[in-house]
C-alpha cells in the first residue's frame, strides 16, 4: 500500500485546520480507508483534544524521533473508528525537536500500511509549517471567507508553489454563513476561489455543532458531517458536486421553511 500524505495548512491561525483534520480523518475512516492523522504543532498540541484521545496518549512524535519508542507504539487508535489513528505531538518540547527529515522518515514508514496520512500544520510560515509541508504529496489550504485569512492563504500557496517540487494544493472554504453571503456581507466562495485560483475541494458551512463537538472530542454531525464526507470522497477521487452552502440548504429545504413560517 502506498498512502497519500496530505498536509492541512492555512497560514492564519484559528480558521479550522485542526477541526478539518480531525473530521476529514473520520470521514475517510468511515469509508474503510486506513488513516493516520499527525499533529505537527509541537508544543501546542490539540488535535488529540478535538478527537477525544487526550487520555490515551503514552508516547508522542518526539519520543519516536529520539528513539524512545517505535512508531507503532506512539500511534493511538481511535476509540470509535478502528481505521483511524493519531500520532500526537509533544506537549513539553518545542518545534525545533523535529526536522523536515524526521517528518519525511515518519511519513515514509506510515505510507506503507495506510491509505491517508493527514498532517495538521501549525499556523504561521516558520519552522513548524516547514516540518508539516516537507513530507506532503498534496496540501489542503483551509480558509474562511474573510479577507485576512484569504490573504494568508494566498501567501501560503505562494510559498508552496515556490518549493522546488511544488505539491498540488486544494482549497477548503470553512465557516460559510449563508445569510451573510446572501446579504453581500461576506466574501462568496466564488470570490475566494477566483482570487486564490486553486482547485476547490469543498465548502463547510458555519454551524454551532462544530464548537460543541470539538469541546466534547467527538466527530461533528448533521450538515457539517455531510460536508466532510463529500470532501473525503472528492479527495479519494470520486466526483461529487460541490455544495457551497450559500443558499441556506437545498431548494426543497427552503420550500419547507417557507411553509413552516
Amino acid at each position: 500500500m502506498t498512502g497519500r500524505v496530505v498536509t492541512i495548512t492555512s497560514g492564519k491561525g484559528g480558521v479550522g485546520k485542526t477541526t478539518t483534520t480531525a473530521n476529514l480523518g473520520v470521514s475517510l475512516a468511515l469509508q474503510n480507508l486506513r488513516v493516520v492523522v499527525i499533529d505537527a504543532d509541537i508544543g501546542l498540541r490539540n488535535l488529540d483534544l478535538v478527537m477525544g484521545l487526550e487520555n490515551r496518549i503514552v508516547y508522542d512524535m518526539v519520543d519516536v524521533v529520539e528513539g524512545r519508542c517505535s512508531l507503532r507504539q506512539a500511534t493511538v487508535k481511535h476509540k470509535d473508528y478502528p481505521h483511524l489513528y493519531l500520532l500526537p505531538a509533544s506537549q513539553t518540547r518545542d518545534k525545533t525537536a523535529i526536522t523536515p527529515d524526521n517528518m519525511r522518515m515518519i511519513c515514509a514508514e506510515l505510507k506503507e500500511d495506510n491509505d491517508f496520512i493527514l498532517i495538521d500544520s501549525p499556523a504561521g510560515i516558520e519552522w513548524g509549517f516547514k516540518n508539516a509541508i516537507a513530507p506532503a504529496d498534496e496540501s489542503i489550504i483551509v480558509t474562511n471567507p474573510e479577507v485576512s485569512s484569504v490573504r494568508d492563504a494566498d501567501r501560503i500557496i505562494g510559498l508552496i508553489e515556490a518549493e522546488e517540487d511544488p505539491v498540488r494544493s486544494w482549497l477548503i472554504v470553512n465557516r460559510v454563513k449563508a445569510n451573510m453571503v446572501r446579504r453581500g456581507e461576506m466574501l462568496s466562495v466564488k470570490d475566494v476561489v477566483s482570487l486564490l485560483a486553486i482547485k476547490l475541494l469543498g465548502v463547510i458551512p458555519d454551524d454551532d455543532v462544530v464548537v460543541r463537538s470539538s469541546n466534547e472530542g467527538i466527530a461533528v454531525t448533521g450538515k457539517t458531517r455531510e460536508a466532510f464526507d463529500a470532501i473525503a470522497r472528492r479527495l479519494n477521487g470520486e466526483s461529487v458536486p460541490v455544495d457551497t452552502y450559500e443558499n441556506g440548504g437545498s431548494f426543497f429545504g427552503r420550500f419547507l421553511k417557507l411553509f413552516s413560517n
Partner: protein
Amino acid sequence: MVSIEFKGIRQGILVTLPDAGEWATIQADLAARIDSQKEFFRGANIVLQVGKRSVRRHELDSLITLLEKRNVVLTGVLSEAATTQGATRKLGLATDLDELEVVSHRPADVPETHAQQPTAAPAMNSEVQGADAVLIRRTLRSGNNIHHHGHVIVLGDVNAGAEIIAGGDIIVWGHLRGVVHAGANGGLDAVVCALNLEPTQLRIGSLISVSPAKRRRRPQPERAYIENGQIHAEAWKP
C-alpha cells in the same frame, strides 16, 4: 562622472567599477547613482566587480557604511587582485558568485537581465531600440516581490500583498490588486496597464494614488499614467 555599470544578476545587482580613478571619487559617484534611483536600490543586494584594482579593507569598510545608510547590502566583491580578495574574505564577504544565494525576491524563472547601457548616440538603424524587460508567466501572490530596472510584464494576476517595483512600465495581463511602482527611478512617462486595475496602491515616479473605494460592476482594461502632475486612469484600448 566615471563610468559605473549596473547589471541585474540572479544574486542581486552586479556593479562594475572602473579600473582607474581615486577610490573616494568612485565611492561618491556610486552613492550619487544610488541616490538618484533610491526606490530601485532599496533593500537590494549588490556585488562589486573591481577588476585588477587593489582595494584595502578600510576602503571596503567605508563603502559598506555608505551603502548601509542607503539600505543596500554588499554581499560580495569580485576581484583579480590578491589584496582585494584578502580584504573581502576578512569582512566575511563572497569572492565568487557561486558562493552567493540567488536573491529570493527575484523568482527563479526571471531571466538574467542585461546591463542598462548609457544610450550612446543612436546609430542610423531601422531597428527599434528595445528596453530591458522581464516577463513573469505566473500569478504573483501575497509576499512575492519583483524589482527590476526595466519594464515588468506579468501574465497572471498580481494579488494583494504582492509588490512590483519597476524602472519602466508595468503591464499585467490579469487582475492587479497589489502594490505597483512604475518609473521607480523617476520616469514620469511610465505607465501601468492591467486587464483589471484595482491596485492597493499605484505609484508612478514620485506620485502615489489609491484605487477608488467603489468597485466597478464591469471591470475593463485600464491604463494609468501621469498628466498635469496627477495620476490618471483611462480605458486601455489598442
